[in-house]
């Protein structure tokens, strides 16, 4: 059995978990196996059969009402024992990355994080992972009977499998949490950068925080999240949570629009696996153009308003 951890946020299932489920379902089809979706804490009325599950298992218990790596890894361990799961797929989110290594030790499993494509099961079991901060990929052979794979969000398509999943529930029997949540501070009402399919990002070329209005407006019209370069967050022009790159967040959106960012190697490390990259920069020699699909050599203060205007026209057309 292949088990997939389904992460919820405010009661709804994260898209990255549905990607992990599609990955698990395709892997099951490829190897003649079955795929189970594991929910922790609360049940969901979403039809996970259509998302690829042959079975859903929910582990319930008060200890699972808030996230801790310890209790969630123990609950996953319990679920995997019940399901007799040998392969576990977890999305590479902050919480997923906290559970996965603990679970690997409990299950005596090999672990590979940052996986970007479906496993090759023609001989043994091997996966492709991102390494050297997105500057390369490694093909990793995974030995042994048990394995934990963490999948980078936006690496795998969600699709409709048209299965109907049987559902069961078990009570959590693991330890109580020893790490206590004191408070949570979330950016409200905005698309979280790590989950965004479209991203509009800007750098020092914007001259100052007062000029971000047009970046936010463009992002708003496109339904995109906003990001920034390191110096911009270092100078507190933008919040830390927007900083992308080698020392910031790594993202892999379908579209990355970079405005007034030079394209230093450390910046590219966090964004170069974006599917389509557009660069707007006054300097035709800016290194970012080498990594771009589309480029506009021009002043952001003239170009961005034109993009906003055209996007508005198309929206109302």
């Amino acid at each position, binding site marked *: 059995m292949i088990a997939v951890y389904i992460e919820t946020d405010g009661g709804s299932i994260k898209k990255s978990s549905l990607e992990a489920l599609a990955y698990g379902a395709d892997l099951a089809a490829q190897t003649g196996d079955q795929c189970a979706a594991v929910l922790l804490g609360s049940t969901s009325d979403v039809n996970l059969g259509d998302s690829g599950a042959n079975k859903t298992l929910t582990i319930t218990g008060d200890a699972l009402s808030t996230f801790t*790596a310890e209790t969630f890894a123990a609950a996953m361990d319990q679920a995997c024992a019940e399901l007799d799961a040998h392969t576990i797929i977890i999305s590479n989110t*902050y919480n997923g990355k906290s559970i*996965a290594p603990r679970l690997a*030790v409990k299950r005596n499993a090999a672990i590979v994080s940052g996986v970007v494509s479906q496993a090759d099961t023609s001989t043994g079991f091997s996966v492709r992972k991102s390494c050297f*901060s997105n500057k*390369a990929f490694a093909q990793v052979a*995974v030995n042994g009977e048990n394995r934990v794979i963490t999948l980078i969000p936006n690496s795998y398509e969600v699709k409709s499998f048209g299965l109907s999943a049987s559902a069961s529930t078990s009570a959590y029997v693991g330890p109580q949490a020893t790490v206590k949540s004191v408070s949570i501070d*979330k950016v409200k009402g905005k698309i979280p950068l790590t989950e965004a399919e479209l991203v509009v990002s800007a750098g020092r070329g914007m001259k100052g925080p007062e000029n971000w209005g047009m970046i936010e407006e463009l992002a708003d019209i496109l339904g995109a999240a906003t990001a920034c370069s390191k110096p911009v967050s270092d100078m507190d022009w933008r919040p830390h949570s927007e900083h992308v790159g080698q020392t910031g967040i790594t993202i892999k959106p379908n579209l990355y629009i970079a405005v007034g960012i030079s394209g230093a190697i450390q910046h590219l490390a966090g964004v170069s696996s974006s599917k389509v990259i557009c660069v707007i920069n006054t300097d035709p020699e800016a290194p970012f153009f080498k990594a771009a699909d*589309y480029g506009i050599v021009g002043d952001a203060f003239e170009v961005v308003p034109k993009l906003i205007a055209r996007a508005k026209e198309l929206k109302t057309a």
Partner: protein
Amino acid sequence: MNILVCVSPVPDTTTKITFADNNTKFNTNGVQFIINPYDELALTRALEITEAQGGEVTVITVGTAGTEPIIRKALAIGAHNAIRVNLDPVDAMQVAKAIQVAVADKSFDLILTGRESIDHNGGLVAGLLAELMGMNLINVVTKIDVDGTTVTAVRDIDGGRETVSCELPAVLSAQKDLCEPRIPNMRGIMQARTKPLQVVEYSESATGTSVSSFELPPAKEGVKLIDAANAGELIDLLRTEKKLI
């Protein structure tokens, strides 16, 4: 307060990545190795804590003799002593097990790692160590405060941050913003030469994973330039050619 800081040697952030031996090995020719930037933050914060509350900071590296300049640098920054596990590690599980065995006869209140190494990008060692050693785990933290036997930390979550606390001992992994990394000074460099560096052997044959080959990302086809005067055309192209918006 005794703190263990796990230090990984990694290629400098500006390194052009190339491979050798038919793309099966990272080509280290001419590559400058540095302390993993997140580990530098972990080390600095560990020093700040012991300076305020007393205690010692030990750094540990799993690596061959070639990693010793990195360990000496950590000692020059201020670590009190160092351990090197003499092994060229294959994966994060092997690193974590080697560290567990190497420190089995010692006791630490706090173990700090980086949030990930910038070469493997695993982000796994902290979680593996916590589970192997039966300790609490707080991953990817931007703030660490120790009060008596309680540690309070701020960790990154999707779209925000969470403040959590737990009892020591605990394993925490450092994220940027934790502190300003320290640079070694002349006195530190002199002192580092005489600080203890213990070398321990570790051998384990079976590991869970092995890299069979490396690959560079496919080159971009080349940029399609759009005239700034007709910038709006970009929006049309993204819609028609790429079907993105």
